[in-house]
């Protein structure tokens, strides 16, 4: 499968920054808790994913997968993951190619979950088992589409920089002249 920085770059302009959401502690340990939680946090443009022919349950499976691709259990809330999933579903609304990629990829994921663990993907309680299923599809265009989107949506997201302790742009403040050489523990 083609994976490249140029694909990452394509995502760059698609992911809008998440503005000013609250960071809360939300463990997603049990699948039932996750489903309830994700249902409760089903915020944003609900029309778009429905219009792409995606059911609420399918969307939740994608959000579960997104959280497993770059897991930040207590560190990040659902919103940035949801935003990435929804942006891809929004694209699926107008692009048959994307819609097919997502729907076929998801069917494949669910079939594997069923075959290996006898349950739907999101209902697999053990995160290591979910990772195992995802490792079996990691080279697919479906998986890489979400991975690329998340790379931008989580780590190139200015609203999340402070959470990671990253400062971002500095020239407007005259650089880091006051702090660049400070270290307390060495």
């Amino acid at each position, binding site marked *: 499968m083609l994976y490249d920085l140029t694909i990452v770059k394509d995502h760059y302009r698609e992911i809008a920054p998440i503005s000013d959401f609250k960071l809360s502690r939300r463990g997603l340990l049990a699948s039932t808790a996750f489903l309830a939680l994700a249902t409760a946090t089903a915020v944003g443009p609900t029309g778009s994913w429905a219009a792409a022919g995606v059911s609420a349950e399918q969307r939740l499976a994608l959000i579960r997968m997104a959280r497993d691709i770059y897991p930040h259990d207590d560190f990040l809330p659902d919103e940035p993951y949801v935003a990435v999933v929804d942006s891809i579903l929004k694209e699926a609304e107008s692009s048959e190619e994307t819609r097919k990629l997502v729907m076929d990829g998801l069917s494949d994921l669910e079939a594997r979950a069923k075959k290996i663990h006898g349950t739907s993907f999101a209902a697999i309680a053990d995160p290591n088992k979910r990772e195992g299923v995802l490792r079996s599809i990691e080279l697919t265009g479906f998986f890489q589409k979400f991975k690329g989107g998340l790379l931008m949506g989580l780590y190139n997201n200015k609203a999340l920089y402070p959470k990671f302790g990253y400062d971002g*742009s500095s020239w407007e403040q005259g650089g880091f002249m006051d702090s*660049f050489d400070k270290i*307390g*523990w060495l």
Partner: protein
Amino acid sequence: MAAKFDLNDDSIVVIIGSGAGGGTVANELAQRGVKSVILEAGKTLSLEDIENDEWSMFSKISWLDKRQSAGSWHGAVNHPGLPAWIVKGLGGSTVHWAGVSIRYQEHEFKMKTTSGGVAGANLLDWPITLDELKPWYDKAELKMGTTGEVTGMPHLPWSADFKVLAEGARRIGYSKITAGPMSINSEARDGRPACQQIGFCMQGCKIGAKWSTLYTELPRAVDTGNCEIRTNCMVLQVEHDKSGKVTGVVYADQDGKKQRQKARVVCVAGNSIESPRLLLNSESSLFPNGLANSSGQVGRNYMTHMTAGVYGVMPGEVHMNRGTAVAGIVRDEAHYDDTRGFAGGYTLEKLALGLGFLSAFLVPGPTGWGREVSSGLENYKYMSGVWICGEDMPQEQNRIALHATEKDQYGLPIPVVHKTDHPNDTNMRNHAYGQMAKIYHSLGAKKIYNLPAYPASHNMGTNRMSAKPEDGVVNKWGQSHDIKNLFVSDGSQFTTSASPNPTLTIVALAIRQADYLATQLKKGAI
């Protein structure tokens, strides 16, 4: 007043590329009264375009024309369309470079003699010595504002992140630990300000404290009235007459229209992928294997340096993004000592990545996801990192080849970039990983990540310099062995990679080449 030259003016030098090689040659020629036209494939850039944002600048300035990675290096899988990370824009990769300006060591000009030869490597001694190059290194450092003895400008102050590396290095017994030489102003100099520790050096220096031809050589060349720069002009072919002398170039202008610029001399400086590609694409009935290629070495011996990254999660906060990207260098492994299991040496260069790039490179490629990546990124502010840069063995099969079927937007075969590590490279990388592990463990690092090579920013060797015409493409002046009015002015003329970053040596060679070329033109020898 800016010069404007006629397409039929065959008295001028045509320079292809405006980076460290092309930009420097243009200004040096212009100062000596020699007229030139620079054809730059990329667009005009200015400080206004520079942002402190890794991905935004990546998409703005990178060379993203179609290319293919090949060979057994991980990039053939993980970076299939991006073998190299260089710039398409005015100023070339001097916009992107980090500023490290180390001179090559004496023995690094004669690696074949020093090593006695390495099996499987196409080693050759340079046709020049450090002694010959010394005065040109001095001129290069004065031009670029390199911190150190020649300019008298002190090295930059140590950043927190460099203090971490330096302390770890000290604990394992290293002592060659310095914050330079860097071509970044530590004081206001030459019309450019002192560094403000902004970071994002490799996204382009927002204030111009780092040397780049973009705001030094290029405007100065234009100011003489002897140089015209044409941007968005991609050279497609170098043409020649029946006698085999080059007569000019065909290029696609900003509207995609083909133009023919005549020339007395052509200097090729499009970096080590495009320069050989252009010569290969310029094949003719007289030169069926490509221009300047009687040796068969055009496009071969492609070297990137032996590179790798190591990032460690430290016990306290580091904030590596605060300050210059490469804030210091450790050179205790840069010497020659083959008892370590490899020929050549390497440096440890502290390198800060932002959150965006670290997320893509910590574990690169399609399999780089999961807790291994995300838990590391949660510790971003505790991270410290280095880039390992060492001598790369030249191998004939590591090469720039033309794709059999795939064409670019101009209808030319795309370059296929073959790179496979020599066992020497692997041994050196493993040695460096081991030393970095000792350094970071000595500091109590909680986790260490070994990163493979990034897409190459150091690209060398594909039109190499040789004493004998049968061994290489150009002579010791960068002049084609086969065609005396054709020059190579970039890092593709490097005979071997040595361990230091290439830009300083490219500039020293370019100043020297311009001096030779101007003299030859004056004498009517070309």
